[in-house]
């Protein structure tokens, strides 16, 4: 469904992505692991054109794009099929929870208010926020805000949802609830790409796992193989270092 080849990105002289190939099939839950600074987030942002890639080609459904040369029109057509969940939630602070979800549906997708509201209510209930429809972001905990952001992503019924470290900004006791919501989406067959530091979550929920290091993909394997016996030494040492922290 989504296939990217030769993705490169540098900030100034600093090469963050040094030629990344990545693909996503319908129904995949692809977890992206790797140490800080390995380029995971930058890759994800390039995939939704929040950063402009320096090089790379993308095939998405029937379309093919030259990533640095893609037009604004093509980007907005592409984004109709994708959604993005940010590390810092990025809710619209002047809108209520339900307005955060309906805003894009009404303004960008020209949906009627009634239909958008119905969808938004369904999405907010799906993430466990019934009774919080009219709360402002400031009145919600981090975990609740992130669940609103997930509802906002889900309500657009995208073909792919990108998650950029969705639990990294949360207090430890709130992480579980958000991960449960994402796990629920996985069980419903949503196609997702999740940059995360939650190795256990990847172990339980991913269908495929990618390991990135220094701007390259070191491993790209189905979950069982990835966490199986034949691990690369670099991955083993990364996973061990995480365990030691815990």
């Amino acid at each position: 469904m989504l296939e990217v080849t030769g993705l490169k990105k540098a900030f100034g002289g600093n090469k963050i992505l040094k030629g990344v190939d990545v693909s996503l099939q319908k129904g995949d839950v692809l977890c992206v692991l790797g140490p800080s600074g390995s380029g995971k987030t930058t890759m994800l942002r390039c995939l939704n054109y929040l950063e402009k890639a320096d090089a790379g080609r993308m095939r998405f459904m029937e379309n093919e794009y030259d990533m640095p040369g893609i037009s604004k029109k093509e980007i907005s057509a592409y984004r109709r099929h994708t959604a993005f969940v940010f590390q810092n939630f990025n809710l619209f602070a002047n809108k209520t929870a339900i307005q955060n979800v309906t805003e894009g549906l009404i303004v960008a997708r020209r949906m009627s208010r009634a239909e958008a509201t119905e969808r938004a209510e369904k999405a907010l209930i799906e993430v466990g926020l019934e009774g919080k429809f009219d709360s402002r972001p400031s009145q919600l905990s981090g975990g609740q805000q992130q669940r609103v952001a997930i509802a906002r992503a889900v309500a657009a019924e995208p073909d792919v949802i990108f998650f950029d470290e969705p639990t990294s900004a949360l207090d430890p006791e709130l992480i579980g609830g958000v991960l449960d919501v994402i796990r629920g989406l996985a069980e419903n067959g949503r196609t997702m790409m999740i940059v995360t530091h939650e190795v256990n979550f990847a172990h339980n929920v991913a269908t495929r796992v990618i390991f990135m290091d220094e701007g390259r993909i070191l491993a790209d394997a189905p979950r069982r193989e990835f966490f199986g016996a034949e691990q690369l030494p670099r991955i083993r040492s990364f996973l061990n270092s995480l365990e030691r922290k815990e």
Partner: protein
Amino acid sequence: MTERLINILLESFPKIFLQGLLVTIPLTVISFAIAMVIAMVCAMIQIANVKGLKQIVRFYIWIIRGTPLLVQLYLIYFGLPDLGIVLPSFPCAIMVFALNEGAYCAETMRGAIESVPKGQLEAGYCVGMSYMQIMRRIILPQALRTAFPPLSNSLISMVKDTSLAANITVVEMFMTAQRIAGRTYEHLALYIEVALIYLIFCTVFTWLQRLGERKLTSVSGGGSIHA
């Protein structure tokens, strides 16, 4: 206090107050309204980084902020006639006050827009909204809430700054008081009186500011704008 003085004050009060309603307040409000438009346009040009126009805006703000308001008034009213451009005093005052205030408020607005976390712009893009839609519906309402107190401050400053227009023959409150003082020789009393009338007008504006802030708070999510 002599009876004569009391009579002078009683007689002059409505005259000065009326001149405030007829000249000082319209001068303030019209200039400030134009200044808001200028400020908004200048702030948006800077935020959206429009090449060419941005340099013009920076130059305009630099000139206005680097020169005294009184000099600007003199330059336009007494200076431009040398080039054959003669403006009546009231429109001239409006023009100078609007241009002056616009430059300061442009900076206030720019700061307020920049204070809204950039992530909300990205989130807006990701749900398919355009730059202008995000600005109008998400960023500017929050920026306005942030900018409201400093902008109110500027408005209140302007009520008093309009007294400078007396220098270019606009008969506003201060000029009216000055004339009566000159005629009656009651300088101390008249200037205290006009100061009190400025105080009354500014108090009303302060009160309106509170009301506006309360209203904005209820529609924009309270003190939560930096979530």
